[in-house]
């Protein structure tokens, strides 16, 4: 394939990426751009050309040694729910835009620490980027069928143009906003897209190699196991190899948090905290899929080419060897995708760090504070743009001058080891509030020096001079200073060895100096906040202690310079609203200072923000004791406030409950009054009759006709009966309602009870010439209080009797058994019950308007008592109308 065709394909592919990023920026609010899947896929920026090509080289030469690099993240991901959540919360609250910002903020906005971290990251990342460029260049070469590749000059080198194109891409989508903590959705979506491509293409070549070129995994294994030196590849030389594995896993564990590009995609670009829940299982799955075919491709390559060719490019060489150019092109594009995403995200992250933690705080601050907002944002953007180009060009130059001789895998591990120097300051600082900035700086410096001595230096020397003197004999020929076997530890792989010793000294320094130096109050303040973010997020802007004098107008002037008039006004008015402050406030308080620092952090980094604000305020020194006291006080105030709020809520609830209870009591009281009224009325009525009749008979004894006297006497008897019946019923009802009436349940036959009830009312029925028939046939023996059920039945029957017409009246008792209950129905052929009466029939003293007699004979309590009795037995009572005519009063009783 010719150079030009290949370059045209690359251009087209980059065009597609530009388009995707453009569409994503345009639809920045759409659901798919903000989905957890995009987040997870963007994390796969972890899989660079190193993964895509390098791990096959390792697998071919060293066996399964490539795996620990992926096991670290797999182990780290489940811990994200604790670690990453904490990091995310702090970062979002403080508008963190890079790992340097994060760590330096933890140590009190320390400017030097931020710069140091930036430099460490640049040293670790630039060779790493150059390694990506190297992969592009070499694969480009293989695709173009050059046998060997020598860069003759920048102008002829396609890699140079690729690098420039990537710089343009990163600049265009990475520096649209001044605030670096804002999301770069275009870049993230294109990275996610590339992650799909590289995985898919890698799986395609894996399947092609394993199942098309060979007969499956078994076939490859059978053949490779017969080659020389095979056993060395699969053996696990314990326990020394175990240590190497352990340290390599630790190395990649810290890398997944600390690599600038990983911090960028996982923290800065994170949209929602809950996305980490999906990423926690999806990302390890992604890594697993990526590694499924590595070993088989490596073995297939070894079987096909022996050990002569560079094993890192087996994925390209295998299809080319079988003249499958299309497939090779796909693999090339997959690798190219891995490169682009790594280079773009890394340079974006680095440029933010370089501008916010190095250039602005150390050079441009004075200039900024004199300029206008439009110019300042342009300056900041330009600094970032220039940084991006500089980083990529530096990487290119590094590649041209140094890395041609180096393998992808080795440079990758060196980069990991350098970045890992940030781990103690990062991880321990998150959980230990004593960690101080001095300790962090010394730890990183010492750790980096050890790494340089045990890894970078010997590695470079080995690559460029055949002289093995330094490695074999150590510095000044001292045995203990051999770079690969410091103090006699000679069984670890060089990166694991370097990691072990650098971490050992780094952590030791960190712990020692943290315990001996206390750090200033600001540092302690931030430390408290990082270690216990949950506690402090509630305090919000008051979480940072500040004491001094500052004018709101001064602070506003600074904000305007970076945010512009409009954004500043908006932000401040929101702030005043949030804390309920007067908008014409003159003097700034601690909250405004902290709020303003936060606002500026995204644009110029936390260190610069602090310096700028400090320039216009007159800050008073506060002692550490005072800081802790103030913090404790605001925490206490907050807790007290919360407690008061809780108490007041509880009180409100209690008041409501009391009110309800009171209302219920009032209703009950009124009901009781009504009941008493009705009872009094009901009692007075027969009493009136008796009294009046008695008086007349007394006064008129002589000239009263006999039949009138007889009538009065009969009335008096009737009224007395009514009176005593009423009194009995009231007592019954009251006993049932208050629960004082206990049921005396015994085993009885329901038929017997029904017949008893019918016979007790039969003489009344006969008087009225009403027929009562029993059609119930259920001979059920069951447990109930017979006297009471008899009362119910009698009440229902006499009620029916009241409503049936004379002579043609017919009352029928029926029963049926179902679901462990017996239902007994008393049906009549009267006028039926008016619809509106149904809800009240069983209320006490409710009298239907539809009775045949003018004045009911009952007490008005019969049905109410019946209801009580039935419900006490666990049954139900109700009224309904018959389909043809008449009413039905029915009740159920449980058989058991």
């Amino acid at each position, binding site marked *: 394939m010719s150079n030009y065709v290949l370059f045209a394909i690359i251009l087209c592919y980059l065009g597609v990426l530009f388009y995707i990023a453009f569409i994503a920026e345009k639809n920045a609010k759409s659901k798919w751009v903000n989905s957890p899947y995009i987040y997870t896929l963007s994390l796969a920026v972890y899989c660079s050309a190193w993964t895509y090509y390098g791990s096959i080289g390792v697998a071919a030469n060293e066996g399964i040694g490539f795996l620990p690099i992926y096991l670290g993240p797999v182990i780290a991901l489940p811990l994200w729910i604790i670690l990453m959540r904490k990091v995310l919360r702090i970062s979002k609250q403080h508008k963190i835009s890079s790992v340097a910002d994060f760590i330096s903020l933890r140590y009190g906005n320390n400017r030097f620490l931020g710069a140091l971290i930036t430099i460490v990251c640049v040293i670790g990342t630039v060779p790493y980027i150059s390694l990506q460029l190297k992969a592009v260049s070499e694969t480009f070469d293989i695709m173009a069928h050059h046998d060997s590749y020598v860069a003759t000059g920048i102008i002829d080198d396609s890699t140079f143009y690729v690098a420039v194109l990537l710089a343009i891409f990163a600049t265009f989508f990475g520096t649209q906003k001044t605030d670096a903590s804002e999301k770069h959705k275009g870049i993230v979506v294109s990275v996610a897209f590339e992650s799909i491509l590289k995985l898919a293409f890698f799986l395609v070549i894996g399947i092609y190699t394993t199942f098309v070129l060979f007969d499956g995994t078994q076939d490859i294994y059978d053949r490779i196991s017969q080659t020389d030196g095979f056993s060395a590849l699969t053996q696990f030389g314990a326990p020394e190899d175990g240590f190497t594995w352990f340290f390599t896993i630790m190395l990649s564990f810290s890398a997944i948090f600390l690599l600038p590009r990983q911090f960028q995609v996982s923290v800065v670009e994170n949209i929602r905290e809950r996305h980490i829940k999906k990423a926690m299982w999806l990302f390890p799955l992604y890594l697993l899929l990526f590694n499924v075919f590595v070993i088989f491709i490596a073995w297939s390559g070894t079987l096909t080419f022996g050990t002569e060719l560079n094993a890192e490019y087996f994925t390209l060489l295998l299809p080319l060897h079988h003249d499958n150019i299309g497939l090779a092109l796909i693999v090339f594009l997959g690798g190219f995708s891995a490169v682009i995403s790594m280079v773009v995200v890394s340079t974006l992250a680095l440029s933010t760090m370089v501008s916010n933690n190095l250039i602005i705080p150390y050079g441009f601050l004075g200039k900024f504070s004199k300029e206008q907002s439009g110019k300042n944002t342009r300056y900041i953007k330009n600094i970032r743009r220039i940084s991006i180009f500089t980083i990529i060009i530096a990487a290119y130059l590094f590649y041209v001058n140094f890395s041609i001789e180096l393998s992808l895998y080795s440079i990758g591990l060196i980069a990991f080891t350098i970045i890992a120097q940030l781990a103690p300051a990062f991880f321990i600082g998150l959980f230990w509030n004593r960690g101080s900035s001095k300790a962090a700086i010394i730890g990183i410096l010492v750790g980096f020096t050890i790494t340089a001595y045990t890894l970078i230096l010997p590695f470079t020397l080995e690559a460029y001079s055949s002289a093995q003197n330094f490695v074999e004999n150590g510095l000044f020929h001292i045995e203990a200073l051999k770079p690969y076997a410091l103090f006699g530890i000679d069984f670890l792989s060089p990166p694991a060895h370097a990691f072990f010793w650098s971490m050992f000294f780094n952590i030791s320094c960190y712990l020692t100096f943290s315990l001996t130096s206390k750090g200033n109050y600001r540092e302690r303040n931030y430390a408290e906040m990082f270690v216990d973010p949950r506690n402090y997020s509630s305090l919000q802007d008051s979480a940072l202690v500040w004491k001094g004098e500052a004018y709101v107008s001064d602070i506003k002037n600074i904000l305007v310079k970076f945010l512009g008039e409009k954004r500043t006004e908006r932000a401040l008015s929101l702030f005043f609203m949030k804390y309920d402050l007067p908008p014409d406030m003159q003097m700034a308080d601690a909250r405004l200072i902290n709020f303003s620092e936060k606002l500026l952090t995204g644009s110029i980094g936390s260190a610069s923000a602090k310096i700028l604000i400090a320039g216009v305020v007159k800050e008073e020194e506060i002692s550490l004791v005072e800081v802790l006291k103030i913090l404790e006080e605001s925490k206490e105030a907050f807790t007290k406030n919360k407690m008061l709020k809780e108490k007041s809520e509880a009180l409100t609830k209690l008041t409501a409950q009391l009110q309800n209870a009171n209302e219920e009591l009032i209703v009950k009281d009124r009901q009781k009054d009504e009941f008493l009224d009705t009872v009094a*009325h009901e009692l007075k009525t027969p009493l*009136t*009759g008796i009294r*009046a*009749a008695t*008086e007349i008979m007394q006064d008129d004894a002589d000239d009263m006709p006999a039949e009138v006297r007889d009538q009065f006497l009969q009335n008096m008897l*009737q009224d007395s009966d009514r009176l005593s019946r009423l009194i009995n019923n009231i007592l019954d009802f009251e006993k049932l309602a208050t629960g004082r009436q206990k049921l005396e349940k015994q085993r009885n036959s329901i038929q017997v009870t029904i017949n008893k009830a019918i016979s007790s009312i039969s003489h009344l029925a006969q008087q009225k010439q009403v027929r009562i028939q029993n059609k119930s046939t259920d001979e059920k023996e069951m447990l109930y209080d017979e006297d009471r059920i008899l009362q119910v039945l009698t009440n229902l029957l006499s009620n029916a009797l009241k409503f049936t017409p004379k002579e043609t009246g017919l009352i029928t008792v029926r029963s049926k058994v179902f679901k462990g209950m017996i239902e007994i129905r008393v049906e009549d052929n009267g006028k039926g019950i008016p619809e509106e009466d149904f809800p009240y029939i069983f209320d006490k003293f409710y009298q239907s308007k539809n009775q045949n007699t003018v*004045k009911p004979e009952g007490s008005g309590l019969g049905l109410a008592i019946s209801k009580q009795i039935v419900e006490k037995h666990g049954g139900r009572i109700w009224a309904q109308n018959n389909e043809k005519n008449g009413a039905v009063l029915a009740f159920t009783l449980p058989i058991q």
Partner: protein
Amino acid sequence: MKKKILIVDDEPNIVMTLEYTFKKQDFEVFIARDGSEAIQLLETMVPDVVLLDIMMPNVDGYQTLDIIKKNDRLQDTKVVFVTAKNKASDIEKGLKLGADKYVTKPFSVKKIVAEIQELIG
């Protein structure tokens, strides 16, 4: 001419005693068993006095009084509540609505006769 009295009550035994008493006092006695019967009757006759129970089915005493008060023909008719409701508030309410007398149950027959005599003199 005989004085006319209308007794409105749903308790037949009480009606019986009042009927006997006022017939003896030479009244022409009319009987209604509730408010609606009373209203029907009042369309054809104008009594001198109405003895009105309050708690009755269908149309109660208050409603009946209201209708009587609104009827111009019945302007001279006196209304006496005869009821078991004996709370002060009930009595006040009854008199406020326009009843001329308020007798509580159980009543003395002699007293009720005296009250009526006084009322229609």
